[in-house]
């Protein structure tokens, strides 16, 4: 009887320790999740910025007076929007 009681106490302590570890793990996973979300959002912003810059430059391409510059810029922009 005493032994089974002791066994129960040991099991309860074991579960409590396990529960604590799981909680800590959950906290760390939440932290990682937040970081992954932030990185994803930053990558999206970066991609959007590249596209916006390419479109902005293409829209004002006709204003470039130097024909060499105009040609070079158009090729560069095309490479980004339509990579071969």
């Amino acid at each position: 009887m005493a032994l089974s009681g002791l066994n129960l106490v040991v099991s309860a302590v074991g579960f409590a320790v396990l529960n604590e570890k799981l909680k800590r793990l959950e906290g760390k996973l939440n932290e990682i999740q937040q970081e992954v979300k932030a990185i994803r959002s930053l990558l999206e912003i970066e991609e959007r910025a590249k596209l916006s810059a390419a479109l902005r430059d293409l829209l004002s391409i006709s204003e470039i007076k130097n024909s060499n510059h105009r040609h070079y810029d158009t090729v560069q922009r095309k490479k980004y929007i339509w990579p071969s």
Partner: protein
Amino acid sequence: MILFNAKNIFGPVNLKYKELLLGADTIETAMAYEEYFCLTSLAHARCLAELEMLDMASRDILETQIFWKEQSRRIANDLLLAENPERLLFSDFAKDVPVSTLAEWLDFSYGEEKGYSWIDELRGKPRPWYAEDGYVEVGKGAAKVTSSLFNVASRYTGKVIEKDIDRQQAKVLPSFQKLVARNNVLEGYVEQYRLLEISGTTPM
């Protein structure tokens, strides 16, 4: 080709910081993004000007200044002045923020050239000295309470106030100085690029 490549690198990076600045809601992030936005904008405009695209450079820097001013005013109003701009009239800031500087900061923040009239407006905001309830300021009142229980409370309040003052000295005041100074610098750049466009000369 080097200038073209530089322009094509600065362009997207500039737009990235533009978007980040638009969403920045703390002093630290807003000031960092503002710095990088300005840096990349100036570099992008300079590349355009060196490539003899002077009209585009002039327009680019003007657009930068308009966007920056709008965002800087948001930062100044929402994050730096916040809800109690009248605090800048108190003795905590007497040494660091002379009245002439304060008037200049408020002119910039609110976009109105009122000068010293701002001081009169701010003076109307704090509680009256001869208030009916006798409490001129809660912080002052709490510090005067002598019972042991309230002493503990006032010690805690003191710590919080001290921390807030440190934050004001370390972040709010330098950020304000930076924004107002940069406003003058950007206005100078706009004028410079306009003159370059008119004269048809590149910066170098």
